[in-house]
């Protein structure tokens, strides 16, 4: 039985063996390549091709004539997978994105100096317990509270700019700005959080050592 002809597979030889045994497939699933688990088309199969020496040693007639995939696996487990292995599909999503709140390498096309020059700290009232440059406090908010001695927003802007210049930023970007930036001042860790992606405005709040530790890659602090 010519499996590749039956299935319509036109890809590389290692991917041309389809699973004909419908008992191994979940209900409703389409035929798939045993080797790479893709449907029909195999142009993007990232698996290693079967080495030529082993392919030559394998008797295609023997395995192709086997009536079930289980028999094929016994005959040629390197091509069809081990007996009992799953056979339905698995495929990596095409969409990629960075981790949400992790320190990350700075993108190659980003000039951090230019980004730092455009950002400013504006604060936000949910982190204040006192009237400030951020406006009246929001007493009901259960948020981290800023040190009341911080009364000059321009000082905090300098902390923010230093954090961005030194690459202590998160992997998530919104517009031209990183969502998060981190600074350590006087033994306290602060997190800056973008609140306006057009203006580059940030709020900031202290975070605990434990919150700091759960930020992925935080140990690579510069």
């Amino acid at each position: 039985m010519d499996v590749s002809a039956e299935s319509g597979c036109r890809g590389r030889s290692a991917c041309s063996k389809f699973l004909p045994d419908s008992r191994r497939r979940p209900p409703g699933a389409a035929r798939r390549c045993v080797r790479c688990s893709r449907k029909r088309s195999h142009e993007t199969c990232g698996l290693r091709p079967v080495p030529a020496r082993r392919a030559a040693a394998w008797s295609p007639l023997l395995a192709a004539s086997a009536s079930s995939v289980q028999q094929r696996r016994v005959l040629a487990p390197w091509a069809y997978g081990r007996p009992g292995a799953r056979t339905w599909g698995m495929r990596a999503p095409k969409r990629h994105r960075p981790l949400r709140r992790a320190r990350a390498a700075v993108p190659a096309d980003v000039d951090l100096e230019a980004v730092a020059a455009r950002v400013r700290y504006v604060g936000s009232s949910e982190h204040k317990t006192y009237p400030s440059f951020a406006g009246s406090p929001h007493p009901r908010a259960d948020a981290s509270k800023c040190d009341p001695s911080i009364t000059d927003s321009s000082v905090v802007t300098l902390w923010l700019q230093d954090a961005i210049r030194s690459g202590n930023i998160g992997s998530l970007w919104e517009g031209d700005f990183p969502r998060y930036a981190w600074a350590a001042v006087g033994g306290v860790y602060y997190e800056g959080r973008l609140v306006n992606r057009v203006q580059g405005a940030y709020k900031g709040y202290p975070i605990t050592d434990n919150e700091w530790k759960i930020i992925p890659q935080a140990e690579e602090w510069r």
Partner: protein
Amino acid sequence: MIVSQEAPMLNMEWEWMPAEGVRSAELAATFARLQLAIGDDCVTLVEDQQTRSSRRSVTVSLYPLAEWLVFNWWFLRAGARAGHANHSYDSRHSLRASGDGFLWPNLKFFPEGTVTRLIWQRDKLFAPHSTLRYLAQGEVRVSSTGLQFVLANFVSSVIERLDELGVEGTALQAEWIGLRSIDEEETEFCIAAARLGLDPFADGPKFEAEIIEAATRLPSDILATFYDAVSPGNIETYSASR
């Protein structure tokens, strides 16, 4: 473990609140009083140092919580690597990692197949920059399917709120659309990557060939255990040696 219909389940209740002075559009739009309960236990039972009283809800923006849930969706569904309870694990499994300047309860999710173990811990002390500490602690197993339904309903509600108030283009909305468009084959991969401790959209693609090859080589009855145990760099070595 059989989970009966009467088994406890995470209950999330919230009431939208005004957010004067909150600068970020998405944080302001989703400002709310939130109460989490599991059965008769109130997870958000807190002591408020300012008012010297206790209450059963916290006032926070729901956006960071919804975003954290969506970004860690696969870890909450399948990422149970025994012995990896470190800080990195907490960032994916503890609700406290939602961040954005709010003190979240230390509620951890440990998926164990058809059930998910929920553990919540009290704060022994007030956090240095907070007037709040959580008082409740406990542990319970809930249905994984039911939990996913509750979490998905919560995320949908937050996104509806953003849409109603005209907040667009957030990371949460983009991630949720991406998550809902995943097909069956991609779901299998995302679960496998999460079992390996890899984010399916950030780290998983680097190991795509190894993960898929292991699935073709190994019997399905041991595959989940294999992914739970093996280090991503050793997938090929161990799956081939079997």
